[in-house]
């Protein structure tokens, strides 16, 4: 006979504080807002990934007979726009940043909880507008919206899409503003700047970029749209305007945007590497300053996207040198991660597998970036698949690997449950293999001269393209498996306990999942970060 009063199920912290739809849609809890973002960007990831799948399918044959060129143009634009603005940019900041940042600094919430929720609604509005642009036919300009094609000649839904991105930009700004104030004003007692985990440093630097770069994109897209709408504008050569000015303004945002996508990943990887090698991060202060210097230098290198535009050679030389400079702090970080691993007590848990994947892929992406920053070499490689491969190694090999690693690392905190380790390792390895299979051949294709954004290509490129497409299929499996087991483990995984990884960091000092107010007592910090006992 069952007991009359079955024991109440264990509380699931913030997850059980209200279970109605309204309790989620009106929440001001940073943890719930993080989950709202998680669902939203996963949805957009699937859309962007489907477009990529269709493109890879088309590229298995050289004569481009599966779709029209126009359809293909719309697919790669869709893929770029959705992945950049509706997945990568919000990925780590808005999901992991929102969830972890206040916990990691011992705060009850972000500085402006209402603004935080508003930022999600703004993001959803922007996303819906972008979806509408896709449903009514899409855009064929590429994600870069170069004038005068976008402002004058394109017959696709440029205005609607630009509006969607414009709106979503304000959610980026709101999130960045919120995090800046949170880090400045809400740190727990004793948590000085140089006791902050590097993840917090990275999110802080990213927020500065979000706040300073996004408005420039907004005004640039607005100017482009005005020109399109009124048939007159400042990029119009007929009036003496210069289309290149658009590129300058666009890349003034979009190069720093790359750091919006990669800096948070660097922060995540620092946490993972330190925790899974049970060691203090090597050169903590240098790591913090290199994050800041990457963020700062990022604003000075945009011209490397314009070496073969009519930009002056002297400007090109300066932009080339400045771009080389970025590799210094980046390399320092890579060396310091490796030095942290060196003689550590390493466990190859899933998060570390992702971190190691990040290290390998980010290094390849970074080194090929030096090729592209070299003026003369870039003339050969510009607008080829080499560029595609390079930035996918950074943004997917770096950014998405770190995002996946971070999701796995903090999943026990987010859900209170463990994920199945075997499946997780399997998918981490699958993603790594699939990724390299997809994108390494593209370096070769680009070097051999295959241009980006074409679906018809000479037959001798077919073998490499087929390998790349096969890799994309492997990659798809690698991404779909976590979607399944993470969802399963959210409800059925075994209890995680407050600190399954035995990690330092304030977020691990509260139950999993944390209560709505985060900490029963505001923690007081007395020790440096990554204070693992000596080995």
């Amino acid at each position, binding site marked *: 006979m069952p007991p009359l009063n079955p024991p109440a199920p264990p509380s699931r912290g913030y997850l059980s*504080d*209200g279970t109605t739809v309204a*309790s989620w849609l009106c*929440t*001001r*809890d940073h943890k719930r807002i993080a989950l709202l973002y998680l669902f939203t960007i996963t949805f957009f990831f699937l859309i962007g990934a489907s477009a990529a799948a269709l493109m890879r399918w088309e590229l298995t044959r050289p004569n481009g007979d599966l779709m029209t060129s126009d359809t293909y143009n719309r697919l790669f634009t869709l893929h770029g726009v959705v992945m950049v603005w509706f997945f990568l940019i919000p990925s780590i900041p808005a999901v992991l940043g929102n969830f972890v940042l*206040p916990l990691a600094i011992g*705060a*009850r*919430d*972000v*500085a*402006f*909880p209402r603004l935080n929720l508003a930022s999600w609604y703004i993001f959803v509005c922007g996303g819906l507008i972008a979806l509408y642009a896709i449903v009514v036919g899409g855009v064929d300009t590429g994600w870069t919206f170069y004038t005068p094609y976008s402002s004058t000649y394109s017959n696709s839904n440029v205005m609607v899409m630009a509006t969607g991105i414009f709106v979503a930009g304000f959610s980026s*700004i709101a999130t*960045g*503003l*919120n995090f*800046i*104030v*949170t880090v*400045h*004003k*809400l740190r727990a007692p004793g948590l000085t700047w140089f006791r902050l985990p590097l993840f917090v440093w990275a999110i802080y630097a990213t927020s500065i970029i979000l*706040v*300073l*770069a*996004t*408005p*420039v994109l*907004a*005004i*640039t897209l607005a*100017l482009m749209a*005005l020109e399109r*709408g*009124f*048939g*007159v*504008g*400042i990029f119009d050569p*007929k*009036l*003496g*305007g*210069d289309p290149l*000015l658009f590129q300058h*303004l666009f890349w003034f945002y979009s190069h720093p945007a790359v750091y919006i996508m990669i800096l948070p990943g660097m922060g995540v990887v620092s946490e993972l590497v330190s925790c899974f090698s049970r060691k203090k991060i090597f050169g903590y202060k240098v790591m913090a300053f290199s994050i800041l210097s990457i963020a700062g230098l990022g604003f000075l290198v945009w011209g490397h996207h314009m070496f073969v535009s009519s930009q002056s050679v002297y400007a090109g030389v300066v932009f080339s040198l400045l771009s080389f400079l970025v590799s210094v702090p980046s390399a320092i970080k890579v060396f310091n991660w490796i030095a942290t691993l060196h003689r550590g007590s390493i466990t190859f848990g899933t998060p570390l597998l992702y971190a190691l994947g990040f290290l390998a892929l980010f290094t390849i992406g970074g080194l090929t970036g030096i090729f592209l920053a070299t003026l003369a070499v870039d003339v050969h490689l510009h607008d080829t698949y080499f560029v595609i491969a390079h930035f996918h190694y950074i943004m997917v090999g770096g950014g998405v690997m770190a995002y996946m690693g971070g999701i796995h690392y903090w999943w026990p905190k987010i859900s209170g449950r463990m994920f199945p380790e075997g499946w997780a390792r399997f998918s981490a390895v699958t993603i790594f293999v699939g990724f390299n299979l997809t994108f390494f051949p593209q370096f070769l294709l680009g070097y051999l001269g295959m241009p980006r954004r074409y679906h018809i290509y000479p037959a001798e490129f077919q073998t490499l393209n087929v390998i790349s497409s096969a890799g994309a299929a492997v990659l798809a499996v690698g991404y779909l498996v976590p979607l399944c087991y993470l969802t399963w483990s959210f409800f059925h995984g075994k209890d995680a306990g407050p600190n399954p990884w035995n990690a330092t960091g304030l977020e691990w000092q509260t139950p999993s999942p944390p209560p*709505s*107010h985060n900490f029963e007592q*505001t923690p007081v910090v007395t020790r440096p970060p990554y204070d693992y006992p000596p080995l």
Partner: protein
Amino acid sequence: MTSAEPASAPSPYSDAAQRDVANHLGMWTLIATEILFFGGLFLAYCVYRGAYPAAFSAGSHRLDFWSGTVNTAVLLTSSLFMALGDAMIRVGRRRGLQVCVTLTAGLGVLFLAIKFSEYREMYAEHLVPGIRYGAAGPPQMQLFLFLYFVMTALHAVHMLVGIGLLGWLLTLNRRGRLSRDRRAPVSMVGLYWHFVDCVWVFLYPLLYLIPR
């Protein structure tokens, strides 16, 4: 904004002072964003003014010098009253604050009215690129006029937001929610108002005072 919060939404702050400094930093960060937002336009202006000085001068001559000048005076005076309002509430004079903020908002509305009449006149003279344009002159003059309309319209939108915020201050004050110890909203709105004013301080010489 201290409306009753549901129990599930605890304030992230430990006290009101911490909240006030956070709000201030938030406003400064917003202003940094705004500077970059206008920054793209200022950059475009500088590039084309450097390239086409004669056309820009010709364009500037088509603007109504006195409207711009009077508007500058109006806006600077409004900022003076905003600062006076801040001084009033510092010594707890709520009526004085009400008068000052009302004057600030009133001058803001006057500014917009003058701006609007300027737009209307330019429309009548076929000086609105893309909508109604038929001015003789170098083609690059359109670049100047286009920038003129985009920059001043964006500024006017910020004025509208500012006037809304001033209205919010008046409501707060009428309900007795502002005092010597609770005056953070006044200095926040003040910061924003002065920023919008500063933008105009740059717009006025760039647009109206090109060598005449």
